[in-house]
């Protein structure tokens, strides 16, 4: 069954069309990657899926309900959001940041309860950051900060995580560590993930890790193709959209199949 469903969804800022006729279904327990060049509308689509931006035509449904008719607090119990970059306004303690994931379960004039604190600590534990609990989060590195954002999302206890280029600012090792954490969460908890990314190999990474993965290739406000990673991320499509020569490499080794697409050169 599909958790998120978009039907001919379009969005425009004033006169300017940013999304056109997007139709998609995100199934329970799968990894749904949004991939495409800069400015193709990935972030706008993510904001629409989260109900932060309202589609100008077409519908987006969350478990069958039109997202425009849902309150922020209702959406926050279904979808948790992990931003690309998080701006840190004050040096809050790590635990205080994660506790913010409990807002949708707490009344406007109430404080977080003991159970909320416990949920937040468990979430930190699951991303391996419990020992940072009482540190000011302004002192964390980029990779650690993203893991705290994941913990905050986990504290929301939602069936779906929605991530917008979560590894954009991470180094080589932190990026891999982040992906490993997501893979572990998906395997442990059957959580559904929607993730916008700049890297086609993220989709292959999830597939290589035996997670049900699908990719939507976006270009110029629309979906160009949708399907399993090796159906969508083909050498031809890479040429057609990015004007690059690339090579899809498949390798069989003791732990299974390993697929990657390698960029080779750009065409003028």
């Amino acid at each position, binding site marked *: 069954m599909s958790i998120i469903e978009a039907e001919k969804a379009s969005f425009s800022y004033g006169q300017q069309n940013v999304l056109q006729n997007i139709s998609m279904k995100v199934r329970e327990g799968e990894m749904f990657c949004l991939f495409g060049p800069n400015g193709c509308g990935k972030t706008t689509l993510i904001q629409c899926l989260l109900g932060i931006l309202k589609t100008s035509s077409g519908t987006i449904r969350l478990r069958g309900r039109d997202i425009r008719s849902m309150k922020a607090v209702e959406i926050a119990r279904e979808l948790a959001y992990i931003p690309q970059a998080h701006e840190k306004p*004050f040096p809050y303690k790590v635990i*205080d940041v994660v506790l913010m994931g409990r*807002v949708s379960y707490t009344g*406007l004039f109430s404080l977080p309860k003991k159970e909320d604190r416990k949920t937040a600590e468990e979430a930190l534990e699951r991303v391996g950051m419990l020992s940072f609990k009482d540190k*000011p989060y302004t002192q964390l590195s980029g990779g650690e900060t993203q893991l705290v954002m994941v913990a905050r999302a986990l504290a929301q206890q939602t069936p779906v995580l929605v991530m917008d280029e979560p590894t954009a600012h991470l180094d080589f090792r932190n990026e891999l560590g982040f992906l490993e954490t997501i893979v572990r969460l998906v395997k442990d908890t059957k959580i559904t993930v929607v993730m916008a990314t700049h890297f086609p190999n993220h989709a292959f990474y999830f597939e290589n890790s035996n997670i049900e993965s699908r990719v939507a290739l976006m270009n110029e406000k629309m979906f160009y193709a949708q399907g399993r990673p090796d159906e969508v991320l083909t050498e031809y499509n890479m040429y057609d959209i990015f004007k690059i020569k690339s090579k899809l490499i498949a390798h069989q080794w003791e732990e299974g199949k390993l697929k990657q697409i390698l960029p080779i050169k750009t065409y003028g």
Partner: protein
Amino acid sequence: MRKKLTAAGLAVAPFLLIFISLFIGRYPLSMGQVIGVLGIKTGLSATAPLPIHINVVWDIRLPRAILGALVGGSLAVSGAAFQGLFRNPLVSSGVLGVSAGAGFGASLAIILFGSDTFYVYAFAFCFGILAVVLSYVIGTNYTSTPTIMLVLGGVVVSSIFSSLVSLLKYIADPYEQLPSIVFWLMGSMASARFKDIAISAIPMGVGMAGLVAMRWRLNVLSMDDREAQALGVNIIFVKGLAILFATLATAGAVCVSGVIGWVGLVVPHMGRMLSGNDNTVLVPTCLSIGAGYLIIVDNVARTLTGSEIPLGILTSIMGAPFFVYLLKKTKGRGW
């Protein structure tokens, strides 16, 4: 354990300072004399003290100290709330123009009706609120980055009202009205009587209580708007509510005490040094420190020299260097 001691200390401090204030002043009073006045007024003792003692303790020192506590607490709490809302540790309770608006309202009332305190309060309060409403309308006219737009709205509105105050000063009668306007703008508790407290305590109390009650939400409101909404916060409603409470508290304070700068900026920083950035702890801490700070400053204001020093001058002279010291001390801690 240390946390609990700090909390207990902060809770008791304003009351202790109010009590100590009863002894401070140009008219010396002993412990027995003060207790005597308190005893007769609360009905616990029957021995009548001298009328002058009653006058000094009950009609002057006590209302001033209580008003100082309320005003200081209001300014500090709303300052902390605004700093959180605007994700900016450099804004204060006057950021949306409430002080400038109130200053204009008070000046207008002085010119139209003389120094009748009722009109001055009412005008100051209403124009303070009006200024915030204008800033809010300007700030939310645009759909993108409303936070910076709100701050700019506040800058514009403050500037307009400041100019209008200058205009009123220019046309005011220089012997009667102009001095009243100037003194009002410098801030003072000198006119504090219990009836003033009774009127202004309502908006201050509602504002402070509201902010204290929703203090955990202030943490989330300091996040990026999109993140806060994805965390389940109805941004427009909750932010509007926080602005409403902070404005009620500030307008209530400013209308009785005049423009008192720096409390809403410096006290939240003292609070952060003492108890960290989590608003669930920070807001009550600010309430207590703000109350205590203004009681102390007011005591200095009325005892330092033979005639009274306007409060706004002292809060700036004491607050600004202290702020520099705080910035030096906390440098590199993130903000």
